[in-house]
């Protein structure tokens, strides 16, 4: 099966194009089913690969490259033509992610058939989603970071398109631009990292890059800069502080799109890229440390915002940011396995949460949780699946989130206690606000009777995906944590012996000399001997047994009532903090200020251009001509057409004194100049 892996990203592209150009827009168009079929095929392929690996039938990593284009290049003063390959590299994490992405995408699309069917741009939505899926899958399987970067950017594009899907409204328009620009800002870091890596190694191939790092051919300084570049890219894409501003606004898009892109998959791409280029970070401890702290800060800040938000999708968005912070923190702490594990489980339960929220919104036509309440009575299935997801994200045994979050905490504990404690606190905050969400939405009394009575359970096309995702939210953790599978699926790369035992670029490619100089890679898998410690028992058992349930219960009781006075009083007591959180740490304001500043700079630049550069270098040239013209015209005693130009005044001023001496158009004036020439010649020659 694995030899067909290259088809995985291409099938959705084809589907997307067929959907987009296949027929006119029609709310009942059958074309979306093509997308669903395509992604189902992908899912089947991915599942086969994953199962093959887990069951031992397929050896990973698997790499296959084809020639893409030839590029003249210069390395070390030598110029030659190098063939840039394009290809697939499937390592175990990629296999898992292929499965996860395909699955979530499939579920989202099925869900959307129902969710989007009234929309005027029904078909287009599926085209975008298919295209997005293709890009994400492409990033996952690409053997080449250049291709990876292309997919990365294309995901940004689809994100842009989906956020602004309802572009008639001003909100989505602003949000989509904000999302694109913010991620673009981050992307510039990744872009530079790419340039730097290529400049140092002469290749874009992941395996070859890894070799270079493994062999220590890249100076630590360069590695650090590159790692920070990658980190910046990940900050943009994965909405890490302070570039997180775009993600909450991105909820302006259709909910299934948010579920897929802004919850489950695309936002995880930052984490994914960091993991793919983990060897760079291994060579750059400073960047690792930064990633850890960055993740922690992000997790905390986002969780804090989630505590106060009333918009159900916003809460989920903050939670996404927070969870991404966890993953980043894990990677930074060296918990490679933990981070990717959490990425996987998070994809399931976060998609589920979003789809469930979508189902709720679909039913009550509002995002404001204060107008919900008691919906469990109207939408039992949705409630049940949401509950699974909340338990999962909160880290209740045996739901998926428990295993992965636990692993992250262990990694943090092992790495740095100063990170562990705040991280633990943030985990509890997570449990709190998720329970708050669940309580406000489904439990307690119905606060808005009108909406409550109109609410009803969603159709099967919506609930089935919820159930499927709930299944995985329940079981994924157990499955992966079982029998050390996690470490097999997400093996932490190492610098000493990391070069994966894969044939390098195909023989047709002219390998750059720097790569050719690489000695035979040591392919034996040697795990770095890290002192892996378990948490102390009181924590190991206390967290799932007491701390997390405690936080959840607190939330439940605080928000159970119709008016939740306790919560309100706390809110009022800490007004400055709440305001700070409501204003999202003033990051949005900072962002707007930055935008305004850029506009100012642009206006200034243009002013300079129009008033200085143009004047000096173009009109200045003309002015020079003009002055010369005026002077020569004056000496010609000719009439100046003052209307020709304002500079005409020049000759008038000059002329006041002299004009009395020299009249216009007079032949004797002409003679005068001749006589002057004569007299000067005579005197100069003869008195020399």
């Amino acid at each position, binding site marked *: 099966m694995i030899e067909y892996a290259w088809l995985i990203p291409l099938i959705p592209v084809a589907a997307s194009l067929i959907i987009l150009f296949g027929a006119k827009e029609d709310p009942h168009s059958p074309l979306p089913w093509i997308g669903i079929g395509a992604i189902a095929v992908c899912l089947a392929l991915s599942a086969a690969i994953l199962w093959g690996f887990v069951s031992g039938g397929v050896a990973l990593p698997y790499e296959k490259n084809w020639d893409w284009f030839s*590029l003249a290049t210069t390395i070390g003063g030598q110029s030659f033509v190098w063939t840039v390959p394009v290809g697939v590299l499937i390592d175990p994490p990629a296999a898992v992610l292929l499965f996860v992405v395909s699955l979530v995408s499939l579920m989202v699309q099925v869900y959307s058939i129902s969710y989007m069917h009234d929309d005027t741009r029904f078909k287009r939505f599926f085209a975008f989603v298919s295209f997005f899926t293709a890009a994400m899958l492409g990033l996952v399987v690409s053997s080449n970071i250049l291709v990876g970067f292309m997919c990365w950017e294309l995901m940004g594009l689809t994100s842009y398109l989906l956020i602004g899907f309802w572009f008639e409204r001003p909100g989505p328009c602003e949000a989509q631009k904000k999302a694109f620009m913010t991620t673009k800002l981050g992307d510039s870091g990744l872009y530079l990292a790419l340039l730097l890596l290529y400049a140092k190694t002469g290749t874009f191939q992941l395996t070859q890059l890894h070799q270079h790092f493994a062999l220590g051919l890249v100076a630590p300084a360069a590695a650090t800069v590159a790692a920070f570049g990658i980190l910046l890219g990940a900050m943009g894409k994965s909405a890490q502080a302070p570039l997180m501003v775009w993600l909450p606004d991105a909820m302006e898009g259709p909910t299934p799109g948010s579920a897929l892109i802004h919850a489950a998959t695309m936002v995880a791409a930052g984490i994914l890229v960091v993991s793919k280029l983990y060897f760079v970070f291994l060579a750059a401890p400073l960047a690792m440390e930064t990633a850890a702290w960055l993740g922690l800060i992000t997790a905390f800040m986002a969780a804090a915002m989630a505590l106060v938000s009333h918009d159900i999708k916003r809460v989920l968005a903050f939670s996404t940011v927070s969870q991404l912070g966890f993953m980043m923190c894990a990677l930074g702490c060296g918990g490679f396995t933990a981070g990717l594990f959490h990425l996987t489980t998070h994809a399931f339960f976060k998609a589920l949460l979003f789809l469930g929220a979508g189902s709720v919104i679909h039913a009550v036509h509002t995002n404001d949780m204060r107008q919900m309440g008691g919906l469990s009575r109207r939408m039992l299935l949705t409630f049940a699946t949401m509950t699974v997801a909340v338990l999962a994200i909160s880290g209740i045994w045996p739901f998926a989130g428990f295993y992965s979050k636990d692993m992250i905490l262990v990694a943090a504990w092992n790495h740095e206690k100063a990170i562990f404690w705040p991280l633990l606190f943030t985990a509890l905050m997570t449990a709190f606000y998720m329970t708050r969400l669940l309580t406000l939405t489904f439990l307690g009394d119905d606060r808005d009777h009108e909406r409550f009575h109109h609410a009803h359970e969603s159709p099967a096309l919506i609930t089935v995906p919820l159930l499927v995702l709930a299944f995985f939210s329940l079981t994924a953790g157990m499955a992966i944590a079982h029998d050390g599978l996690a470490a097999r699926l997400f093996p932490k790369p190492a610098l000493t012996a990391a070069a994966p035992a894969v044939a390098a670029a195909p023989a047709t490619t002219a390998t750059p000399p720097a790569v050719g100089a690489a000695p035979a890679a040591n392919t034996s898998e040697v795990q770095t001997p890290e002192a892996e410690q378990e948490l102390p028992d009181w924590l190991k058992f206390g967290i799932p047994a007491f701390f997390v349930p405690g936080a959840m219960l607190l939330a439940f009781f605080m928000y159970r009532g119709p008016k939740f006075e306790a919560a309100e009083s706390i809110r009022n007591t800490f007004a400055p903090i709440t305001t700070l959180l409501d204003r999202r740490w003033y990051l949005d304001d900072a962002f707007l200020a930055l935008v305004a500043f850029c506009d100012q700079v642009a206006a200034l630049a243009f002013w300079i251009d129009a008033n200085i*550069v143009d004047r000096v270098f173009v009109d200045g040239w003309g002015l020079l001509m003009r002055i010369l013209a005026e002077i020569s015209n004056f000496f010609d005693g000719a009439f100046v057409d003052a209307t020709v130009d304002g500079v005409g005044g020049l000759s008038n001023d000059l002329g006041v004194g002299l004009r009395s001496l020299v009249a216009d158009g007079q032949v004797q004036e002409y003679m005068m100049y001749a006589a002057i020439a004569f007299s000067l010649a005579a005197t100069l020659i003869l008195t020399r």
Partner: protein
Amino acid sequence: MMLSLITWAPLVGALLVLLIPKENVKAIQGVGFLASGVSLLASLLLILSFDRATAGFQFPEQWSWIPSFNVSYHLGVDGLSFPLVLLTTFMSFIALIGSMGIKERVKEYFFWFLVLETGMLGVFVALDLILFYVFWEITLVPMYFLIGVWGGPKKEFAAIKFFLYTLSGSVFMLLAILAMYFHNPARTFDMIEMMKAGATWSPRFQELVFLGLYFGLAIKIPAFPFHTWLPLAHVEAPTPISVILAAVLLKMGVYGLLRLCYQMLPAGFAWFLPALVVIAVINIVYGALCAMAQTDMKKMVAYSSVNHMGYCLLGIAGMTAAGFSGAVLQMINHGIITGALFLLVGVIYDRAHTRDLSAFGGLAARLPVYFGLMALTCFASLGLPGLSGFVGEFLCFLGAFPLWKWQTTISVLGIIATAAFFLRMIQKVFLGAFNEKWEGHMPDMTPRELLSVVPLAVLTVLFGVYPKWPLDLMNATVVALLRK
């Protein structure tokens, strides 16, 4: 003979156009298309026989022209110029399609247009400095008329400003060419001979001559601070001429920089390199910032050209094969993309007679095809991977980075600014609520408009996904350029 055919076919067409009475618009257009089509077809045929492994000049033609001065009619293309020849024939044909909208004084229009095409092609195929200069100047005059007669409100000013400013640059180029001629013991204007002789000249001389050449080229490119003619000319020119201006004319400057400055004056070039990279960075960042400040769509696109030509300069300044390839590829891609952008801006201008960004809104829902093409082109222009703009831009950066780390880093920020103004344009014009003022005035694109834009869009995607085709044409030459 093929190169001669390509070059002169439009001129023959121009002369034929003169013979047709001006009332017979159909015949004039027919002859125009025929002449330009012959060029296009011939150049496409040449792809088949173009040897991608040869670095030197192919399809050479050499006849004595002015033996007294050792000036010869010497034509030839290599991997540097051949893609540009293709670009020129192709974009000229596209612009001709766009020119079907010209309704008044058609005869003169086609005459000047075809003369212009010959001039542009000549610049890229000429291998003799005098011949090169002659073609270089030939492009000015038709451009002057095309802007001045068929342009916008300030067309007359724009035309003369364009003409005088570029002319003042090119006369210094002539001076430099003469200086090289007299410095070469062989007393020849032949470019190939000059490339051989150039390396032996004293650095001081090379620097002086470089400045002379650069002054002419920089105005054409346009490199900061000589760029301010461009927005005016672009804005005032009629749509097809803006297309030609952006797609081909600017390329003549960069081409000259590589062909004349780099190949003939290596020491002078190396001497200027630190300045060149600074200029490139200014072009990129400052061009993008200026574009951000625009409210006129066409002016914005014009400033984006300043920005994009900055990428070319940056790539060249890198002195690496990747940078050179990137510069050439960026020229091609910028030609295609910006050509399409101008055509698209022209589409909306034809309908609304305004290009003010804030005059529109919500067109995406009413003109989906137009929106799709515009979005594609804008994203290509802002360097979205998968579209052609990215490849050239990336290669430029790739090529420049090893030598100019900080400068490249600053330039990367320019990309963000580029994204900013394109997105803002999309938002203001296409998104949001529909401006009811245009109700009934906004039909989607006509077949003629589609005919002119869709080929460009297809190429944009094609070259973005599979840049092998254009790159293969130039690889051998680029490698050879750096080998010496």
